[in-house]
């Protein structure tokens, strides 16, 4: 509910007084909040005036705020999901509808946007429009949509590398001397133009721009803050990196790890751009950033969840598993907001919807998990490597049991006096292990996709 501040601040400050921004999101969020503030002023001016002081919340005002999220969702995110599912190939209409339902039922986004209160669906929706545009060969519109996404929330930069590599790959394929070069120039112009348009009011003074940039990328705040299912946070259980390493060194190693982990997938995408490879690279890139990057928040897992939702129809079992873990990783945050019952209900509903729509428990063979080529390669060296799908099924069972147990423990028991954060740390650690596993898995799929990739019909 603290977002209600923004409305009053943006409304009360004039265009010249840009020093007073309490916000650390890019300009588009500011414009959206301003729009909502105008509507709020039209309905009831008190809401804007009174919000210079904290804590006042009438029921009607709460309803208004929640409705703005719903409207943004209806206008941007939901149409993108529906259109995406309509454009899926080689599946029946019934399955398309089921797919759309499962994506929309994803608990993480619902709970964060409507429970915790944020506008993630706007930036994710724009990113999805970008994915749609680029996959269907409307490259300029796709990149424009993605620029809007970045300018709404700077965390969308997690998705920027795959976009860049995919579009670059397309340009290379068209030939750098002819059409490809033209496309490259057009894309560059689109991106630059959209950025300029969004940042125009801020470009008046250099100091302003730097101040905003400093807010957007708070490198001073350290490697991580609070508990997050990140490598650095989990590692610091054993070794307190934050205190041992100097600050600039932390930035460097974080950068190196991130870059190294996403390099293979991105190079592959540039050399062999395909729609399927693009989506999987989105997943692995975003996951690499989440695990290794600087100042990551737990809510950033939503940036990984969106691409995973997109591949739900291709690897339903692993995607459902990932989406359940991603919701679980936000457990401490959701418990703070007293969202236990909605969490349980939406997770059960999502799980049942996915399980029945995709029959995930019947799709655990190697081929279904897209690990066939990988296991064939491994079997050249280790002939006895035949138990992959069995292992994965057992891992799933253990994982679900662990998550349920941890949830029960966190809800019912009190942590010991000496370790007050024990349960949140456990949740983060367990989630981090899961994410590492998924990182490896998605990278395997991308890298071993080469044989089937050559035979597949490539998107021109």
């Amino acid at each position, binding site marked *: 509910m603290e977002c209600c501040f923004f409305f009053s601040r943006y409304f009360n400050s004039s265009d010249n007084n840009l020093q007073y921004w309490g916000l650390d999101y890019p300009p588009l969020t500011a414009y959206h909040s301003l729009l909502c503030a105008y509507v709020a002023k039209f309905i009831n001016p008190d809401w804007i005036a009174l919000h210079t002081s904290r804590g006042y919340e009438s029921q009607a005002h709460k309803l208004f705020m929640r409705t703005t999220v719903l409207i943004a969702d209806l206008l941007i995110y939901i149409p993108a999901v529906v259109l995406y599912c309509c454009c899926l190939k080689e599946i029946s209409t019934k399955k398309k509808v089921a797919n759309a339902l499962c994506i929309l039922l994803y608990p993480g986004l619902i709970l964060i946007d409507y429970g915790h209160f944020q506008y993630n669906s706007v930036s994710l929706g724009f990113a999805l429009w970008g994915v749609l545009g680029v996959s269907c060969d409307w490259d300029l519109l796709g990149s424009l949509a993605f620029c809007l996404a970045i300018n709404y929330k700077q965390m969308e930069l997690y998705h920027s590398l795959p976009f860049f590599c995919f579009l670059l790959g397309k340009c290379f394929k068209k030939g750098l001397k002819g059409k490809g070069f033209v496309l490259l120039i057009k894309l560059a112009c689109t991106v630059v133009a959209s950025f300029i348009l969004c940042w125009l009011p801020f470009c008046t003074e250099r100091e302003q721009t730097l101040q905003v940039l400093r807010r957007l990328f708070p490198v001073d705040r350290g490697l991580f803050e609070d508990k997050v299912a990140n490598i650095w946070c989990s590692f610091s259980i054993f070794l307190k990196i934050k205190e041992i390493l100097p600050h600039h060194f932390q930035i460097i190693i974080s950068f190196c790890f991130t870059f190294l982990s996403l390099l293979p997938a991105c190079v592959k995408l540039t050399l062999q751009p395909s729609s399927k490879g693009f989506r999987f690279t989105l997943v692995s890139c975003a996951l690499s950033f989440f695990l290794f990057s600087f100042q990551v928040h737990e809510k950033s897992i939503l940036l990984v969840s969106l691409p995973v939702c997109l591949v739900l129809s291709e690897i339903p079992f692993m995607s459902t598993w990932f989406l359940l873990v991603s919701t679980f990783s936000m457990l401490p945050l959701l418990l703070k907001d007293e969202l236990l*019952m*909605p969490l349980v*209900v939406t997770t059960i509903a999502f799980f049942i919807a996915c399980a029945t729509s995709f*029959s995930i428990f*019947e799709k655990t063979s190697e081929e279904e998990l897209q690990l066939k080529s990988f296991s064939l390669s491994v079997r050249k060296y280790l002939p006895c490597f035949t138990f992959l799908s069995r292992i994965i099924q057992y891992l799933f069972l253990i994982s679900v049991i662990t998550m349920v147990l941890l949830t029960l423990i966190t809800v019912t028991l009190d942590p010991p006096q000496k370790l007050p954060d024990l349960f949140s740390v456990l949740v983060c650690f367990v989630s981090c292990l899961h994410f590492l596993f998924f990182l490896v898995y998605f990278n395997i799929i991308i890298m071993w996709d080469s044989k089937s990739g050559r035979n597949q019909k490539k998107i021109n």
Partner: protein
Amino acid sequence: MAALGIAMGGGNWFSALALGVTLLKCLLIPTYHSTDFEVHRNWLAITHSLPVSQWYYEATSEWTLDYPPFFAWFEYALSHVAKYFDQEMLNVRNLNYSSSRTLLFQRFSVIFTDALFVYAVHECCKCIDGKKAGKELTEKPKFILSVLLLWNFGLLIVDHIHFQYNGFLFGLMLLSIARLFQKRHMEGAFLFAVLLHFKHIYLYVAPAYGVYLLRSYCFTANKPDGSIRWNSFSFVRVISLGLIVFLVSALSLGPFLALNQLPQVLSRLFPFKRGLCHAYWAPNFWALYNALDKVLSIIGLELKLLDPNKIPKASMTSGLVQQFQHTVLPSVTPLATLICTLIAILPSVFCLWFKPQGPRGFLRCLILCALSSFLFGWHVHEKAILLAVLPMSLLSVGKAGDASIFLILTTTGHYSLFPLLFTAPELPTKILLMLLFTTYSISSLKTLFSVPSFKKIKEKKDGRDLVLLLPVSLPKQGGRARTSRELPGRCTAFPA
């Protein structure tokens, strides 16, 4: 893993529907609840803390026990579970006590007791024949009926937001209807007798049961032309039915008869001092009557035909529960409403007697009894419309004409329930749920019968047409209700 897969995706759509709606009910736990929440908490306290002899005399709270004894015993049973949630709610002096644990317990008790409703819907689905259905699961009548009953918007908002225990009571009623369809008449009668002693509002439909059982069960055979064969009267059946009703009533009222408290119990059950209309007018005939009276009184005052001093100060639109006198039109007494109700149900009851058409005929009569009582009854709540809507769902998947009537009835009936939830946060919920339910019911029934316009009512071969237009109630700030017209069913037994 494969076994789990089969269990999950095995096509057990009924469980999926039931589970889905249960999850939705869990999400509705923190929503607004009305004074009925405090009513039931009070009854938990009364039945737990006080001896049986005090139950119908206790009046610390304004919400005294006004349901029959079986419901009191039900609350008593619940109270034994309640003490593990929050002992404080069982204190009679803790008026308006609503800790989070109390809320959780009460809401979960409603959700849990809905299991009986789910079972009843399952039984009702068995009575539907799906021969003319399409191959697609979602086009089968059983599926549509299950959705219309399990996900019924009216029942959801009355039970799980406004807070009442109608779920399992309607479960009992639907189960007794299902038993009558399955020709298990004794069980049907028993279930209905039990139901009456849980909530006496079901007396509205008792004539249908009585006439049907007498005519179609006690007279074991008909003459070839369908009329009654007097010598096929079975005394055994009559006596066994009577015995069932007597035993159930004895079990219910017996203890209070022994304590000489029967008059007190009856006065609590039938509070005629409460006035012709409830605080929020149910959209029935008396609402129109009151409105007309108000209009005439205003006109009379303007034209100086009435003396302002003689007009009673309290008005019917003030939202209070009291007895009033009408100013211009003659005042209405409980007896008058009873007579109007009896006249309204007479045609359908006559049809049921003279030209019985098996369980379907009984169901139509039941619906008409419910509607007539709703329209002409004394102190009717708007929630009583559910008494007609839910059984009508059973008919709606059978014939196209019934489907059209059902759509009108259910849409207006549900809309008339809107004023029950007047808080701002519930506004999007109720509008969205209503839209979803209405859209689904219209589209699914249309697909089932493929009628071009749902206003067309096909002529049926047996000639019984029912045309009902229910009142559409406007927001209760004005307290106005619009036209309602009910034409009695035409039977071939009567000359045109």
